[in-house]
């Protein structure tokens, strides 16, 4: 019995180390749970809708969560000032915001990701972005959406369910128009 104790401890310790390594490796990749749910024809609930994030302009230490826009269509756009493709698509995103504001159906909400607040504010000013922007300081909010590369855009319906996902730059205004209409009807 005692002879088996030593090897037993070594085996258990080795198994624990392997389990930790496997867990670490499986946690590396971005989650695609939202994409899989959409592909299966479902409209998954947007993650972390009640989580408060600091507003980019931080006027009065302002914070907001997505729940603030419940009842409206939300185009959730993850961006950063260091991301060149975010610059390329910013005009389309701003156009969508103006359409949503004109119809009263909803708004774009920008999520500034792993960025310096000063650089981000400069980006907003230089691209004349009129929609609210929140800061995801450590990237954990983006991680809940499976976002690990920019830009990415999620169209949410009035119940804050995900209706469409664009992982990468949006190059066609028609994509936004189509999915905003679909979200407004959903």
């Amino acid at each position, binding site marked *: 019995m005692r002879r088996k104790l*030593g090897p037993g401890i070594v085996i258990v310790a080795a198994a624990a180390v392997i389990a930790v390594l496997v867990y670490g490796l499986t946690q590396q990749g971005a989650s695609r749970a939202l994409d899989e749910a959409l592909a299966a024809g479902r409209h998954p609930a947007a993650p972390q809708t009640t989580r408060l994030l600091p507003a980019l302009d931080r006027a009065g230490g302002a914070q907001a969560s997505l729940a603030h826009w419940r009842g409206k269509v939300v185009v959730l756009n993850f961006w950063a000032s*260091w991301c060149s493709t975010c610059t390329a698509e910013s005009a389309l995103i701003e156009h969508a915001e103006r359409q949503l504001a004109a119809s009263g159906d909803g708004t774009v909400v920008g999520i500034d990701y*792993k960025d*310096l*607040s*000063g*650089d981000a504010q400069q980006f907003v000013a230089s691209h004349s972005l009129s929609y609210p922007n929140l800061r995801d*300081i*450590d990237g954990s909010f983006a991680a809940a959406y499976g976002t690990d590369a920019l830009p990415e855009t999620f169209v949410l319906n009035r119940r804050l369910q995900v209706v469409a996902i664009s992982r990468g730059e949006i190059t066609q205004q028609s994509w936004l128009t189509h999915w905003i209409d679909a979200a407004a009807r959903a």
Partner: protein
Amino acid sequence: MRRAAGIVAALSLALAFAAAPAGAVTQRTSLVTIEQQVMCVTCGIPLVEADSVAAQREKAFIQRLVDRGDSAGEIRAQLVAQYGVAVLALPPDHGFNVVFYVAPVAAVLLALAVVALLLPRWRRNRRASPGAGGAALSAADSARLDADLARFDD
């Protein structure tokens, strides 16, 4: 004369005390020093090794703070405010993060304790084992071995 010397000595002492903390406060940090202590938050490697656009922005931010005369601690605090604690190469040593520092030491101590506990037992068991020199052969095996050896002798 003695009085003058006493005044000079007192003034020298006062100056020495006044100069000591001032020297400690004016110790400046550098971009390279901070780069070695923080991560590029978008690339997941030490900032000193990173050269992405985001890393260059981060370096420029640090350089501005260095030029302003901020201390290393102040610069790290401002980086955490901008990027969260993930920007630090080593997590802060308080709260749950203490686990990161304590766990390796505890693991080594535990391993040493297990070895210290089991090694004498294994040694004792080995010494006490009756067949330490090898298992005895059965009569059949012994006969076969003798036959084989006899064949080699021929």
